[in-house]
């Protein structure tokens, strides 16, 4: 019998992909950062099953896949709250499970959040591009999971010791800082605009959250000379609404960057889904701290 584990997908889910820590040194060639959208949740999943932090895990968006496991192994599900069933019986999130060979893992909808992580113990035998498995649109789409995909995982172990890692409850407004065009567009205008509740729109994805609110931000600063954008950048679109750039965003943009999300709050944006409301702090992070 083969030593390695094979997992095969009989259903893919809306957007299931392999992720890791991403790429952080190729932005000057136009390569997005990529990587897990919620790094703390991703890290907890790998830690639960005893994997190194750079081992890939499966990122599940809104609806889960259906996966067959050829061998016994350890798995863990973290991030969003999603109902998971092993051979038809519900299993808990945020804890390690040792599962028997020939198991089937299924999911029903997420009850909270938008992205969950499924880690599986072992060495993943998967192709990387520039040191990462994270898919890059049009260039490296190997690990956007499709139905019937099979992945080999070497040396899976089944350590029976139980382990649970509580998911911290994050429930605060998004902290932000002035962006490079904050003053150009007008501090007062930006502050007033960001105070409104922002609705997450359907066309949000790993590249960014498209947001809409009641009043648009009117300015004559519609475009800038193309310049760098980074995850967390809040770009003002010509229609007066904003897009909040995330891990798969382009590296260069031509819209005014009115604000930037505080770096510690970026991963928590992974858990917003279309229809949710997002609230920014009334004051920017510097003013809040009186800097």
């Amino acid at each position, binding site marked *: 019998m083969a030593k390695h584990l094979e997992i095969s997908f009989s259903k893919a889910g809306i957007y299931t992909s392999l992720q890791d820590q991403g790429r952080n040194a*190729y*932005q*000057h*060639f*136009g390569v997005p950062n990529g990587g897990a959208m919620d790094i703390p949740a991703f890290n907890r999943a790998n830690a639960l099953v005893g994997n190194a932090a750079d081992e890939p895990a499966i990122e599940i968006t809104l609806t889960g896949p259906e996966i067959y496991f050829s061998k016994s192994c350890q798995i863990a599900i973290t991030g969003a709250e999603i109902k998971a069933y092993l051979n038809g019986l519900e299993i808990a999130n945020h804890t390690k499970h040792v599962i028997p060979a020939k198991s089937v893992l299924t999911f029903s909808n997420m009850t909270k959040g938008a992205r969950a992580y499924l880690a599986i113990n072992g060495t993943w035998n998967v192709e990387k591009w520039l040191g990462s498995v994270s898919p890059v649109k*049009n260039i490296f789409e190997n690990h956007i999971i499709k139905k019937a995909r099979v992945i080999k995982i070497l040396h899976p172990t089944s350590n029976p010791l139980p382990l649970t890692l509580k998911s911290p409850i994050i429930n605060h407004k998004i902290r932000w800082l002035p962006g490079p065009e904050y003053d150009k567009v007008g501090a007062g205008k930006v502050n007033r605009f960001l105070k409104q509740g922002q609705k997450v729109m359907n066309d949000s994805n790993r590249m960014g959250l498209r947001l809409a609110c009641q009043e648009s931000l009117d300015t004559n600063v519609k475009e800038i000379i*193309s310049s760098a954008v*980074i995850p967390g950048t809040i770009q003002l679109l010509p229609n007066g609404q904003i897009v909040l750039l995330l891990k798969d965003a*382009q590296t260069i943009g031509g819209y005014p960057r009115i604000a930037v999300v505080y770096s510690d709050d970026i991963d928590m944006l992974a858990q917003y889904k279309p229809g949710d409301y997002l609230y920014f702090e009334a004051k920017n992070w510097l003013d809040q701290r009186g800097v």
Partner: protein
Amino acid sequence: MEIKAFGDAALLIEFKNEISLEVHETLIRLYVNLTNASLDGISYIIPAYNSICVGYKKEHYSFSTLKNKIELISFRKPLLNQSKNKTLYIPVCYELGADFKEICKETELRKETIISLHTQKYFTVFMQGFVPGFAYMGVLPEALKCSRKTNPRTQVAKGSVAIAGVQTAIYPGNTPGGWQIIGRTPIPLLDSSAEDPFLFKTGWKVKFHAINQDEFNVLDRKVLAGNFKWSELYG
């Protein structure tokens, strides 16, 4: 030069608010010096037309300590190692240009004139973005200036050479695209297996030359057979 915070883990070095070779050359000098300095705790450096974004680890720097450090580096004499800054000579089959009709109409130039304007000048790689390996090159002669397509293509063939405004670029993969296509090169811009996987480097010079369909096919076969090396393009 002005250094601004760009969130709490990046800063932005801004130069004169224009797209010009002069501004870009100043910027590239600092970019090369910054890269050569290999400072600890720097995550990424993204140069563009008139700005450089520097991402840093918060454990290593505050905005003001890194700002001071960069200001000191900016006073350094250019360490620009000329041997590192190459010129690339890129073959283009203009017979495969799909948008000459539109461009001729807008620029009121003949196809031959457009090709000669595109091949007679050395262009500079200003920045890379949009998709990995997509290099924004310029400055095109003013006469060649044309608008983007009103309806962008959902799929542009890999290697398509295109123009828009006063810029030119090559599509590195099959991607959507809105620029006007004037030709195609068989040269690959990405080599995933290479240690240095991108052909273009920001700041390098590029010169195009015309090849016919037969020459394109020969070169294309050579590339497919794995017998082509990027070093053949260096001047």
